[in-house]
């Protein structure tokens, strides 16, 4: 399937694996890229040398393009932005803010810059500053979220900018892919489905928690202090909500979640750790290789987009 995104990034399928903290490391990113989509290394809060090492490890595993997600609130964001140039990375996505100050440096180095945005105004601004595409991410996604849904955000951003739009949040299969394309997206980004991929180094408990998740297991914490995070409900989210309702301070709540994503992903503590996952977790029932995931999604999406499937319910 060809879209402006596949052409821009030099990939076979318009699918991008999200830059999830702790999960999106070299192994997963390379497997996704090898399968014809775009794998990302998640910079998250990692020091620059850790990111450099992951980039190098990914390159040993694949000749295909691998990108890096730069989390702009990271204390190491400045150094990571240099590592990207030094290591010859050609595709960058950015999260949690506005990458304006790195834009010139990256563009000069021939890096394609794709900011993740949660509003029309930010999308327009990024276009003006030379972004090559944007990821429109709805609040169905896991981790840090905005307020709008993918369904509403994607078409509004598609109408507001000329550059191609990648839909993210709530997409986990070919139906979600096709729906995003109906809204005007030219690629999709998925996180949760890849967390449970066979190549993902995520702890088995974490994967099982996602595979066993029901639709109603998705919980949002942190709304009270303006930094909402979506994860799967457990002992931690219960306690967090109780404290949040009792009016606990931001600092007190932070203590509950300090290092908790790592505890869940690396150590497998899915009771007291933070099991970040999108709302689509309830749909994801099997652990597959990245190649199987991507081929399955593409064949399903192709079938839906080419046939009159949707006309099945007669509207005449």
């Amino acid at each position, binding site marked *: 399937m060809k879209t402006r995104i596949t052409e821009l990034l030099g990939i076979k399928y318009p699918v991008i694996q999200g830059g999830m903290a702790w999960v999106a490391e070299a192994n997963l990113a390379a497997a996704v890229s090898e399968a014809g989509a775009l794998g990302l290394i998640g910079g998250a809060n990692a020091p620059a040398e850790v990111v450099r090492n992951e980039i190098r490890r990914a390159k040993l595993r694949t000749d295909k393009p691998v990108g890096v997600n730069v989390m702009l609130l990271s204390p190491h964001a400045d150094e990571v932005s240099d590592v990207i140039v030094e290591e010859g990375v050609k595709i960058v996505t950015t999260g949690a803010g506005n990458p*304006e*100050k790195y834009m010139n440096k990256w563009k000069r180095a021939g890096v394609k810059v794709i900011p993740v945005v*949660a*509003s029309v*105004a930010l999308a*327009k*601004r990024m276009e003006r500053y030379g972004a090559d595409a944007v990821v429109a991410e709805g609040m169905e996604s896991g981790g840090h979220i905005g307020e709008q849904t993918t369904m509403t955000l994607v078409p509004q951003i598609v109408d507001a900018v000329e550059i191609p739009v990648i839909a993210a949040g709530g997409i986990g299969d070919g139906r979600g892919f096709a729906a995003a394309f109906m809204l005007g997206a030219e690629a999709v980004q998925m996180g949760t489905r890849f967390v449970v991929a066979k190549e993902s180094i995520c702890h088995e408990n974490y994967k099982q928690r996602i595979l066993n998740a029901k639709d109603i297991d998705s919980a949002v914490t942190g709304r009270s202090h303006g930094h909402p995070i979506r994860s799967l409900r457990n002992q931690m989210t219960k306690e967090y909500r109780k404290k949040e309702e009792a009016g606990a301070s931001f600092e007190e709540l932070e203590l509950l979640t300090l290092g908790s994503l790592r505890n869940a992903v690396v150590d497998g503590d899915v009771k007291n750790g933070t099991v970040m996952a999108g709302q689509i977790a309830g749909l994801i029932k099997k652990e597959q290789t990245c190649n199987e995931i991507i081929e399955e999604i593409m064949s399903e999406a192709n079938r839906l987009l080419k046939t009159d499937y949707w006309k099945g319910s007669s509207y005449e």
Partner: protein
Amino acid sequence: MLEKMKELVANQLGVETDEVTENSSFQNDLGADSLDLFELVMALEEEYSVEIPSEDLEEMKTVGDVLIYLKEKGIE
């Protein structure tokens, strides 16, 4: 200038014009989050035909700060 600015801020942030004063902090008094601030900065750029980089935005905490900023850019 202040009156016009109050109106613009009120419109962008969805508050009443008389809630907005020169000392109003966007985040603490008017409840703006980071997305609201981008809406506001885009509106300011359009209204005053000026380019405001995000680094500068970080320095502008109140309505008064914006007035001073624009004044330094020769807009009054």
